[in-house]
């Protein structure tokens, strides 16, 4: 018993000792945990608070509202309209299959479209929005609204989208918008910054050139989200800014007339203010409806546009390199005058053809014009005369004058990525580009705008405008820019040596249009108010063989692709010039019969609307 009790005492001593050891151990561990808590919650609190916010707050960007395009008078050329859309959030729908088949019936979706919607549904999370239809007609939209009681979870939504009310009238100028692709995002900072799925960005034309101004900025919604990305509550809404609205120098009436004149033809018309360089109209034909692209063009429509032999996708005004034909003659004449090669009394005898080093150079008039002076040569577009003066002048001097007047250079600089430079050849160019010496014969055909020389319709328009304004340099522009400081220094610098020379050329062009025997005499307007001066051009597409020359076929007898391009340049009113234009009809045959009559109609309208345009300018000053 004593033994056992002493053992008990020992046992108790042992257990109590160990209890104390354990107790102090517990104390230290407890202190350790408390200090860990203190470290995390007090010392590192800021770090973890940030991490926690990063976890729970997510931003949603909404598509920005795009800036509009207005014409000179404030008509909306490219605007925004309210598109009727249909959204479904799959998880809010009780019976998704039923609803989606019901929608298929109501919207009359094709099997292909229906499959597309189902595929999209599988790609998104159940609480994300499924866009069943992005641009419903009003009829279908109201039909859906009438059946809403039956369509749980279906949301009719009005969203803002691009519209081009004038359809094909401005396609080449303004361009169109469509869904942004990876290239767009990569190459444009503004798109990258404002990108949201489904964002529409400019693909061509001014829509693309002014993307950064037009795009605006996103509305930003901040939501609290859970671990799976579901939105729980909205924390903040930050309103974005609408993109800048751009006012163009274009007159919609003139533009629409140009479009109508070019109907069913391939070609281009552009009209320019000869003092300000403001583009009044600029149309390339055929055109197409840009609205087709906004919600993604259908394969059928796309093939139709792409495979059209008249090439609607090409902006012929800027991208079309054409031989200028006789429209170059005013510049050849001016260059010859400026360089002192000829004077107004200089005459050449035209017999219908000229022999030179074994080559025969034909005038368009087989019988020849007889003795012609400069004025008559321009008036009747005598080729022999221009062979002769070009030969005397030399191609290098000719090209120097042509370049001064804006040929061989991009008219709008880098504004349109697609614009072509054309080609004004000289001896150096040929040596560098082709590695061959310049031939005299080539100078002669350059004198009538054939051979290597190529110009775009907009360049011809600028050239005409600069002749019309008395020979002063102007910079064409399309967007009305309030900022006058960015104007280049050499604006309005004279491009001539002697103002008389310009007057001689102007007078010759006047003769060409308004005097008997003039090539565009039939298209003249006698009313002084509308009277204009111009120069026709007929550019050969292929070399005419002797055999064909003998046949002397009428235009309609030649296959379309081999017909000549018809050109016309003009300015008016002659007494007090204000506008210049250039017209090009691909394979239109003869400049005087196809292109010149269009100028008559255009000048009527342009000059009629001049007062209105002027009053817009005055109004601007009055407002200031």
């Amino acid at each position, binding site marked *: 018993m004593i033994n056992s009790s002493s053992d008990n005492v*020992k046992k108790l001593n042992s257990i109590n000792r160990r209890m104390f050891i354990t107790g102090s151990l517990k104390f230290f561990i407890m202190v350790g945990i408390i200090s860990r808590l203190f470290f995390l919650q007090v010392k590192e609190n800021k770090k973890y*608070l940030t*991490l926690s916010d990063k976890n*729970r707050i997510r931003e949603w960007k909404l598509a920005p509202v795009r800036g509009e395009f207005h014409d000179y008078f404030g008509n909306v050329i490219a605007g925004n309209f309210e598109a009727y859309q249909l959204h479904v959030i799959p998880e809010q729908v009780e019976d998704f299959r039923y609803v989606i088949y019901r929608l298929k019936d109501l919207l009359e979706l094709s099997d292909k479209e229906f499959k597309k919607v189902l595929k999209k549904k599988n790609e998104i999370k159940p609480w994300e929005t499924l866009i069943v239809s992005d641009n419903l007609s009003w009829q279908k939209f109201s039909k859906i609204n009438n059946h809403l009681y039956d369509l749980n979870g279906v949301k009719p939504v009005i969203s803002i989208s691009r519209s081009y009310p004038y359809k094909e009238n401005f396609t080449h100028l303004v361009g169109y918008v469509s869904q942004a692709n990876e290239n767009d995002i990569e190459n444009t900072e503004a798109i990258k910054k404002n990108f949201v799925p489904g964002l529409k960005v400019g693909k061509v034309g001014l829509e693309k050139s002014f993307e950064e101004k037009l795009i605006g900025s996103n509305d930003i919604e901040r939501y609290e989200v859970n671990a799976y990305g579901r939105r729980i509550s909205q924390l903040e809404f930050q309103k974005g800014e609408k993109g800048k609205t751009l006012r163009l120098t274009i007159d919609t009436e003139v533009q629409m007339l140009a479009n109508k004149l070019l109907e069913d033809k391939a070609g281009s018309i552009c009209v320019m203010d000869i003092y300000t360089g403001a583009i009044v109209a600029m149309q390339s034909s055929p055109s197409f409806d840009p609205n087709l692209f906004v919600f993604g063009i259908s394969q059928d429509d796309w093939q139709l546009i792409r495979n059209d032999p008249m090439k609607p996708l090409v902006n012929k005004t800027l991208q079309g390199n054409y031989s200028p034909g006789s429209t170059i003659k005013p510049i050849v004449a001016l260059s010859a005058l400026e360089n002192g090669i000829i004077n107004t009394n200089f005459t050449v005898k035209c017999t219908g053809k000229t022999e030179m080093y074994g080559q025969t150079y034909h005038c368009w008039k087989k019988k020849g014009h007889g003795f012609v002076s400069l004025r008559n040569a321009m008036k009747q577009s005598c080729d022999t005369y221009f062979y002769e003066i070009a030969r005397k002048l030399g191609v290098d001097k000719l090209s120097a004058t042509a370049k001064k007047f804006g040929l061989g250079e991009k008219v709008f600089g880098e504004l349109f990525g697609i614009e072509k430079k054309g080609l004004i050849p000289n001896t150096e160019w040929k040596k560098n580009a082709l590695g061959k010496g310049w031939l005299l014969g080539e100078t002669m055909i350059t004198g009538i705008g054939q051979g290597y020389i190529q110009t775009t319709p907009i360049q011809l328009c600028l050239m005409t405008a600069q002749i019309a304004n008395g020979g002063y340099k102007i910079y064409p522009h399309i967007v009305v820019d309030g900022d006058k400081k960015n104007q280049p220094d050499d604006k309005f610098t004279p491009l001539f040596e002697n103002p008389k020379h310009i007057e001689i050329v102007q007078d010759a062009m006047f003769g060409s249009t308004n005097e008997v025997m003039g090539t565009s005499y039939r298209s003249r307007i006698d009313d002084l108010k509308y009277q204009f001066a111009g120069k026709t051009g007929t550019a050969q597409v292929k070399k005419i063989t002797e055999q064909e020359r003998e046949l002397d076929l009428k235009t309609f007898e030649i296959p379309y692709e081999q017909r000549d391009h018809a050109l016309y340049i003009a300015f008016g009113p002659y007494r007090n010039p204000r506008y210049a234009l250039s017209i090009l009809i691909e394979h239109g045959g003869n400049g005087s019969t196809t292109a010149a009559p269009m100028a008559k109609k255009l000048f009527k309208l342009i000059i009629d609307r001049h007062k209105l345009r002027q009053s817009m300018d005055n109004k601007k000053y009055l407002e200031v």
Partner: protein
Amino acid sequence: MYQHRRFTTSSFNFFQKFKNFDYILLVCILLLGFISLATMYSTDGGKILFHTKSHFTKLIVFTVMMLIFSFINIKYWFLIGYVSYLMIIGLLVWTYLFGITSSGSQRWINLYFINLQPSELMKIFIILCLAKYFHRMRLENVNSIYTILTSLVIILLPMGLVIVQPDLGTSLLIAVSGIAVLWFAGINHKYFIYTMLGFLISLPFIIAFLKPYQKLRVLTFLNPDKDPLGAGYQIIQSKIAVGSGGFFGKGFLKGTQSYLEFLPEKHTDFIFTLFSEEFGFVGSALLLIIYAIIIYRIVAIGASSRSYFAKIFCYSFGAAIFVFITINMSMVLGLLPIVGSPLPIMSYGGSSMLATMTGFGIVMSAKVHNQQSIA
């Protein structure tokens, strides 16, 4: 040295027992129960949903059970020491044969009203069994080979049965409970030191035998940022939750990490994270103090108990509970790798609460019957 107060069983009636209650312990347990209920309510997103209701029911049932257990004389607990151990071994075998499999391990027995996890019960009843085993043993016999081997078998048998489930975490906690008893029973401290050294040396080999997911847990613990969305996700989110709680916390029902479902297993193993996010350092420290008081009371009851059995049970149970709490907290605070171990009372889970409440019941019984000597 010891007062031998004589009293008759008849005079030791219900009311005296009631008077003998450890009210501080009881209040702390009830307080803890209340806190756990509030936290559970928060995990349900501020609504009384399944977890809250179920937790509430279990809390009521098991608290009543604990009170009933308090009135059972400590000598009867002594009596059932071995039997209960063997019964639970039987249950573990049953689990092994017919248990319910969930998320890859077979841990539960379906009892229709509750899915019982016998391994949780073993954490407590192994203490009861070993306490009985050492109760009568003379100190010099404690360190005999026979005793040590027997007690090792008692510990290793359930461990093995739990490891095959597989559930490494719980089997380690069973080992902790057993080793705590061995420590208090007076096994030479050299053995503990040798075992520790042996364990450290063999650690690389043990790791080689670990299952891939267990290895991943260890690696993740060492570097959670390596795979923040995969294996490291739990620990990173848990640390963010605790850390963002700050000094005063985000406020009740305002813990964004849990409310927005960034926290994994917030009902069970990570419940402290949620509590800590909403109540901050102040709340967490308060919770720790409540736990500290509970452990202190358990140890104090052991110290004031007359019987060696009660003493050894209370000390071991106190140590085990402490280890459970510490391991759970270290885990959620990124101090230990993730091992599945619930926070006593706070975590959702019937078996764990049943075991813990049984333990409290026995401790309370030791307090009520602290003058009871066991022959």
